[in-house]
């Protein structure tokens, strides 16, 4: 009964979304506040209805109702509660429902929080959001309905892939989807503004909070995924340039570019056309990601069971929505004002350079992901595009961006002074040089790229701090005055500093980990030992243990350094009884920022176990950095100036 209510609610949500579009559009055309208000009510109703459908599916997973096809295919009674709940979004159909939940949720948020937007713009934004909701809800209802019943339900479900039964992964998709779909609001605002024909500083200010929220959520989502890959896949990798990862990375890059160009549009009225273009592109890349991972076009070797018609439908949705958005852009963009002028050395120029490099980086990721398909379609030749390609293209672009980064915030709008920027950054330059030299002197083996990377990380961190010091006139005015200025800084400024600082922290971690990681592997008998870096490991014992839905070998490994005990970890090798897959549960010993990463391998002849060990220096920073960045986004989001409608109130006052 509950599943049927859910299915009904989903259909109701579709109807409400259609009503949302119709009411909002008619409300806009007739300039009727009542009709537009009814459209907003429909948006809220659609969200609640999808919420009911989502709760119904979650209920079916929690009580293991195998008469629901989706539950039977993706759950199992022995699975712990958390993973039964997470199973709701663990499959294609369920994740599509999560997508719709986020989409209607953002629609309701625009309707609810957008009270201070100009009426016309608000009605059209709600209408566009409703149109997106309609399309994706129709797809979910008719092509991938998760609430369909089975005629003859099985006694037991087929369970969720054991690699996915992990706390980080349970919460990873909600963040990721909220980030992906958050871009839809930006898309809708862009479409609405193009129709209204007014793109100005105020519009830019309304776009920013949504872009910030979506970008921050996406940052956290991607980081969770990377962290999961790091500790679950068992060889310490955290980014593989896998098409699926690239699919989530492209909207992130575009959103980052958008956040920067929106500043220029807001403060200087320039780049309006480009900002709108990015606003449209961000959600287009989100949809591209949704298509790529569901269509199966990228999984050529491992036939990953996806119905091709579903892929085609998603491709049509992508082509039509993005196509309409960009057609509207092509039609309306030439009428946009060019905005204020600026000199070659200015904040505007720096932000344009930022956008050029981020756009090129996105192009690199896009090409790297799709080029094998293009080549194959053109002349049937199969090629591979792997990490070496990205190291040669993406990395230099990013390095150029990061080298320029600290200068940007210190440049004045309109006309900056290069010499004064250098004067303000010389300490950061010194810090970078010292960091590089220290790395050269202390860390072995000596590696040029590693040293340069450490210098770059130091440059970014010191540059971000130098910017704060400059704003507060630290060391040039009395400490009390600096403190007053520090506490008076707007949240937006803090957000930017945190985001740039986090990037520097990430660079340091990534450089250290990739350059100086140490690897060792040996088949060890119980009591046997192995050296990794400065540490010595002893395999004390291996005992069988039984988990809720798996059997495992649990190794106990003691780590010592110069004869002194450092820590003891218990990596496991698990065999999941349903499905028969084995996974390794790595043991990580945290030493400051660095990790000793231990994997228990298979049992070998003569009772030995293959033990792999990695010394991953400063690996924690790889994940801490992006978290700081995401936090920066949230801090910036809390800035009073970004609250919706503030701009409009100011306009009416003026």
């Amino acid at each position: 009964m509950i599943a049927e209510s859910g299915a009904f609610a989903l259909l109701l949500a579709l109807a409400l979304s259609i009503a949302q579009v119709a009411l909002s559009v008619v409300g806009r055309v007739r300039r009727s506040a009542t009709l537009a208000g009814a459209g907003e009510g429909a948006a809220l109703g659609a969200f609640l209805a999808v919420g009911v459908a989502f709760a119904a599916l979650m209920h079916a997973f929690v009580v293991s109702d195998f008469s629901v096809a989706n539950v039977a295919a993706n759950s199992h009674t022995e699975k712990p509660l958390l993973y039964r709940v997470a199973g709701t979004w663990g499959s294609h159909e369920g994740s599509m429902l999560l997508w719709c939940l986020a989409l209607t949720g953002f629609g309701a948020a625009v309707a609810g929080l957008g009270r201070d937007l100009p009426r016309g713009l608000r009605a059209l934004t709600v209408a566009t959001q409703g149109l997106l909701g309609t399309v994706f809800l129709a797809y979910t209802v008719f092509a991938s309905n998760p609430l369909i019943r089975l005629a003859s339900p099985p006694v037991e479900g087929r369970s969720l892939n054991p690699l996915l039964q992990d706390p980080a992964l349970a919460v990873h998709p909600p963040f990721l989807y909220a980030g992906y779909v958050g871009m839809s609001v930006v898309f809708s605002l862009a479409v609405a503004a193009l129709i209204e024909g007014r793109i100005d500083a105020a519009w830019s200010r309304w776009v920013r909070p949504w872009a910030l929220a979506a970008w921050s959520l996406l940052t956290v989502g991607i980081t969770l995924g990377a962290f999961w890959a790091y500790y679950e896949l068992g060889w310490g990798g955290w980014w593989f340039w896998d098409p699926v990862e690239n699919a989530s990375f492209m909207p992130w890059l575009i959103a980052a570019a958008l956040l920067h160009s929106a500043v220029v549009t807001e403060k200087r009225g320039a780049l309006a056309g480009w900002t709108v273009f990015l606003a449209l592109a961000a959600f287009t890349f989100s949809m591209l990601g949704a298509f790529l991972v569901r269509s199966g076009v990228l999984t050529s070797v491992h036939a990953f069971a996806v119905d091709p018609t579903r892929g085609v439908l998603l491709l049509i949705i992508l082509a039509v929505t993005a196509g309409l958005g960009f057609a509207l852009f092509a039609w309306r963009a030439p009428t946009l004002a060019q905005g204020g002028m600026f000199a070659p050395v200015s904040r505007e120029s720096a932000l344009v350079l930022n956008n050029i490099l981020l756009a090129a980086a996105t192009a690199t990721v896009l090409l790297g992901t799709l080029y094998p398909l293009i080549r194959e379609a053109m002349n049937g030749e199969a090629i591979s595009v792997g990490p070496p390609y990205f190291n040669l293209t993406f990395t230099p672009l990013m390095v150029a961006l990061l080298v320029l980064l600290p200068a940007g915030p210190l440049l004045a709008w309109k006309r900056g002074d290069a010499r004064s920027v250098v004067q303000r950054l010389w300490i950061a330059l010194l810090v970078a040089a010292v960091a590089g030299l220290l790395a050269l002197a202390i860390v072995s083996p000596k590696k040029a790229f590693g040293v340069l990377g450490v210098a770059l990380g130091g440059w970014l961190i010191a540059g971000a701090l130098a910017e704060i010091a400059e704003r507060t006139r630290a060391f040039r005015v009395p400490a009390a005055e600096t403190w007053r200025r520090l506490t008076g800084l707007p949240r937006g400024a803090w957000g930017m500093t945190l985001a740039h600082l986090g990037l520097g922290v990430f660079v340091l971690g990534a450089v250290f980990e990739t350059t100086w990681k140490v690897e060792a592997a040996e088949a060890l008998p119980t009591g046997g030992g192995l050296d990794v870096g400065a540490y010595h490991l002893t395999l004390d014992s291996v005992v069988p243990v039984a988990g809720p839905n798996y059997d495992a070998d649990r190794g106990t490994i003691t780590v010592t350094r110069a004869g002194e005990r450092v820590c003891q970890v218990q990596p496991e090798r698990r065999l999941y009884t349903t499905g028969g897959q084995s996974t390794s549960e790595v043991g990580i010993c945290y030493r400051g920022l660095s990790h000793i990463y231990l994997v228990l391998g298979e049992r070998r002849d003569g009772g030995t176990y293959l033990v792999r060990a990695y010394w991953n220096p400063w690996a924690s920073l790889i994940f801490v950095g992006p978290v700081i960045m995401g936090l920066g986004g949230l801090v910036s989001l809390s800035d009073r100036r970004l609250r919706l409608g503030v701009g409009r109130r100011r306009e009416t006052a003026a």
Partner: protein
Amino acid sequence: MRLRALIAALAGVACLAAASDPAERLPDPAQEARAREIFRDVRCLVCQNESIDDSEADLARDLRQIVREQVKVGRSDADIKAFLIDRYGEFVLLKPSFSLGNLALWGVPFLVVLGGGVMLFARLRNRAPETELDASEAARVQRLIEDETP
């Protein structure tokens, strides 16, 4: 869904860094290090997106053995890669070749930078006109000023 595909992509990676298996290693550490460098550029053909350095698949094991043997007899990196391409096609290399067919792949990122640079340059150049008034505008401003101050 994304993670599922990732799993599919990384199928069989549960006990990875297969290449570090002591049973497979070459006795000479320098040669072993060179072999590992090559592994990172060679695709495990039956896997979705893994190098043979990472994959546990049987084919990856075989390829590692081939590469190690060739490293052992002193063949150069280029020779070994040419041998692999000969046998499996360009698909086997994770780094696409700098060939005509891959021109767009390698060129477009830098074209985007170039194009963006040109557009920025053009934007910076055409700022002059707006700062000056033409004759009729100047005359109008003059008239307006005169109107204001009778």
